[in-house]
């Protein structure tokens, strides 16, 4: 992750979000029209899909993860596209933005990615529910950092949002940020469990005030994960936070995005609402596991003119 200056956070300032107005039908309309208003074709489509790969946190977060499975994922992260595709696109090198794993899988991932420059991200803090005692959650962060994780994807306590206890949410998240040390912190809001877009905005703002480097939609384990309306509201929150503090906070939608079309849609959202800086991996990540396969198929078609079969591409 290229360092653009981390978000130092601020003291808790509830007046930045207390009375926020978020009109849900309007957010849904905007989200729907964003993707209808913009499209990319031909070389541009290919480039935008390549850019998506640069921003992917290639992820495996399953109970049956093993070091060997993680190694396979890392190999894909190093070479996300088959050589003939890369060559056809006129590119020399390409990697995903990061690899994202559970804390106990950090060490094998770090080893597998040695020399690639690809950071390892680790979920932590009792992922995905986050309902472990705080000291254990903080210890888990330290463990993952100790194992070599450069980025920590923490989960917030949904209970604090649902009960409106912003102070508790702030304190906890600030403590996590401190535990991260030099590792960048992505705060997962689990928006599918916060339900209202106002809650999403408020939780985003508290997480940023507590020093989150990224705000992230979902664990991938909630009933509803990344959606465009939720993403729109989070992005507007980080825009507002940036306008007040000058800090640049990144955004990571995660979960539920599976297609190349999704990859374009979220990039359009970032470009329209924020600008090109938020199309770079230091400020934008896509948390996805199966999306890469679809992108690779599309790019294969772009290069060869033939529709590809997934069994001819390397598994992630």
């Amino acid at each position, binding site marked *: 992750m290229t360092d653009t200056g981390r978000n130092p956070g601020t003291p808790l300032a509830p007046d930045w979000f207390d*009375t926020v*107005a*978020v*009109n*849900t*039908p*309007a*957010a*849904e*309309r*905007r989200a729907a*029209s964003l993707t*209808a*208003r*913009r*499209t*990319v*074709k*031909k*070389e*541009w489509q*290919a*480039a*935008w899909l*390549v*850019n998506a790969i640069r921003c992917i946190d290639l992820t495996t977060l399953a109970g049956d993860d093993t070091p060997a499975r993680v190694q396979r994922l890392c190999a894909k992260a190093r070479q996300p596209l088959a050589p003939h595709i890369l060559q056809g*696109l*006129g*590119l020399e090198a390409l990697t995903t933005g990061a690899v994202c794993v559970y804390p106990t899988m950090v060490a094998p991932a770090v080893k597998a990615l040695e020399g690639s420059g690809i950071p390892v991200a680790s979920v932590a803090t009792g992922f995905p529910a986050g309902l472990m005692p705080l000291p254990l959650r903080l210890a888990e962060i330290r463990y993952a950092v100790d194992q070599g994780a450069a980025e920590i994807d923490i989960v917030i306590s949904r209970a604090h949002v649902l009960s409106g206890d912003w102070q508790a949410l702030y304190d906890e998240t600030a403590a996590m940020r401190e535990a991260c040390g030099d590792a960048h912190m992505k705060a997962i809001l689990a928006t599918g469990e916060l*339900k*209202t*877009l106002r809650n999403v905005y408020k939780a985003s703002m508290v997480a940023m005030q507590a020093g989150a480097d990224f705000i992230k939609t979902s664990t991938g384990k909630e009933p509803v994960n990344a959606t465009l309306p939720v993403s729109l509201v989070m992005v*507007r929150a980080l825009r507002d936070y940036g306008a007040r503090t000058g800090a640049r906070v990144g955004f990571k939608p995660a979960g539920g995005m599976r297609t190349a079309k999704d990859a374009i849609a979220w990039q359009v959202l970032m*470009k*329209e609402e924020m600008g*090109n800086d938020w*199309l770079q991996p230091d400020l934008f990540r896509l948390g996805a596991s199966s999306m890469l396969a679809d992108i690779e198929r599309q790019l294969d078609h772009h290069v060869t003119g033939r529709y590809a079969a997934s069994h001819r591409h390397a598994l992630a």
Partner: protein
Amino acid sequence: MPSVKEILMSMEYGPAPESAAEVQKWLAARGAFGHFIGGSFAAPGETFATANPATGEELAQVTQGTEADIAAAVAAARKAQPGWAALAGHERAKWLYAIARHVQKRERFLAVLETLDNGKPIREARDIDIPLVARHFYHHAGWAELLAEEFPGAEAHGVCGQIIPWNFPLLMLAWKIAPALAAGNTVVLKPAEYTPLTALAFAEICAEIGLPPGVVNIVTGDGETGAALVASEVDKIAFTGSTEVGRAIRKATAGTGKSLTLELGGKSPFIVCADADLDAAVEGVVDSIWFNQGQVCCAGSRILVAEAVEEAFTRRLTARLAKLRVGDPLDKSVDVGALVHPVQLARVQEMVAAGTAAGARLVQADCALPGEGCFYAPGFLTGVPPANPVADAEIFGPVATLTSFRTPDEAVELANATRYGLAASVWTENVGLAMDLAAKVKAGVVWVNSANIFDAGAAFGGMRESGFGREGGRAGLRDYLRSPEVEEALEAEARFDTSPVAEAVGQGGGIDRTAKMYFGGKQARPDSGQSYAVTHEGRVLGLAGLGSRKDIRNAVEAAAKAGGWGRATAHNRAQVLYYLGENLSARAGEFAARLVEGGHSADAAALEVDMSIRRAFYYAAQADKFDGAVTATKTAHVTLQMPEPFGIMGIICPDAAPLLGFVSLVLPAIAMGNRVVAVPAASRPLSATDLSQVLDCSDVPDGVVNIVTGPKDELAAVLARHDEVAALWYVGAAEGRRSVEAESTGNLKPVWALANRDWTGPQGQGRGFLQRATQVKTIWVPYGE
């Protein structure tokens, strides 16, 4: 083409043009277009070019319609109409369904053709115009199916002449043709001079499905062709376009008996309250004034923003403006395309220049415009006090005005300070405030936390100088139907004499009775200081005030002060009407005697008084039952269609039934919350002036009913010309009907000019009167959390 590597650096969108090849092929194959008359295309006559405004390139030659062409088309429509109307509703439904299906099958073709001819972005043509066209025909296939059941006894007008604008060419065609056909009318439609091509493609679809010849006729041409259509032997004119042309059409159709609906201009307020979701409101502006290059009659072109958030809102709006992509309309990633024509471009430039010359500041997108074509960088004007010329004039381009307000009251005041009343958009997260503003804004359509949402099931149309009549839904269909012909009853002889009389008047030894006029709950002497004799068979029954224009002025002023009546509960109005009936009943003998004195038989007098009492009960009953509707439109939208009173109505009563005629017209008007200035039977005004005492003791608030006696047609003309009078009913002879219609063009008030009739019969009362006393306001409330 740049390499992937280069694009990765720039992350530009790149070009994404929709192909026009199929459409170009069709245009080349078709050559010059003739009119579509009687089911086939006529040979081209004298032609003119229609061009692509994005490039200036000619697309096709189309025929300039002549009077003879119009006559031929009307004749074809006339010939087809009886057969079309005689079809079972189900049969007409099948035709409309086929049209809807074929529009969908040709959706890409139609979208591209629309974009080429009009200059609108392909995204809008593809995602908005064409889907709404198909939806409109589906919806009206349903009305055709249900017509007999839903509108028992109603008839088609016959042949409808329809004139549509260039901003939504095919969509406006659908709004006109679908309801007309569903109701059993046949049509002659003239598309706009600048954008005739989708109408001609639609004609091909009619031919493709085998629609019976003459049911749909398309005649192309300019304003002169339109004027010829207005003057032709049609039964109804439906027009969408400028207020200026609407006025001319009102004048031209006056007294012809042609039914008329007008959908005209607007300068619609876009109210952003302090607690609004500002990002949502900013996006609302994008969907309003930066939609279709701002060439939208209902665009929220007047942004009114709460002072508390003006700075924040303006900052966000400016940032959003910078993201708009202006350029090739066929590019799928373009937000703002070309204005329709160089004339329109020049007009927008001129108006914006006038605004800035008067002190407004233009904030404009800093974007590169294509080197040629009718492009204009979108923007908005700040510092626009009401006195600036652009504050009330319709720019009809992608430039809104922005003005701040301090309180919601002031927002309403500013919103309503306009001659128009087409649409409004209201942004607040407070549902109480949203509905309050929606209720108080004078507009036919109100969008809460949204803008420019349309559906075939929701009525669309204006108040004030934005026109009258509705399109869409039940109200829209009703404008293509009429009640069966009323048998015209003979008017009483006008025994109207204003010179002083030299004989004994009135009570013969009793105390002299003075029939005064009645304004604001007070008996009033005529401003002229003159009275006229009311006589019967040479006998003078009394003197009535000789009303003049100043009395009308005073009466309207009194009515204007009684605005609370429209806000009273329906129950409250019902109570007042019941009480009126009660008090009239208590004095039935006296009122009957007055009628007998004027020549009624005893039986006729008793019947008229009894019917008047019943009428009070009928409209009391209706006061809280003539309801609006909640319409099924889109998911998670409450779409309310509410009948609203006009405000102040002028009512010119028949001579024939001095009491019942007055009661039959005034009571439905006030039952719906209107205030009335009524001119009673000129020859026998004393029943009405007597009634003022009953009004007084029945708790009718001051100013709700105002009575001016005197020369009927002179007073009617003053009312017709009065800009504060929002609607006018006139019962009387043909010449009077023509006159009030012609005089109504000032504020384009709807005029209901009806023949005298047997007021004791079934045609003397009904929901039709209540429909004429109200205008539908459609309120859109999207919901969701």
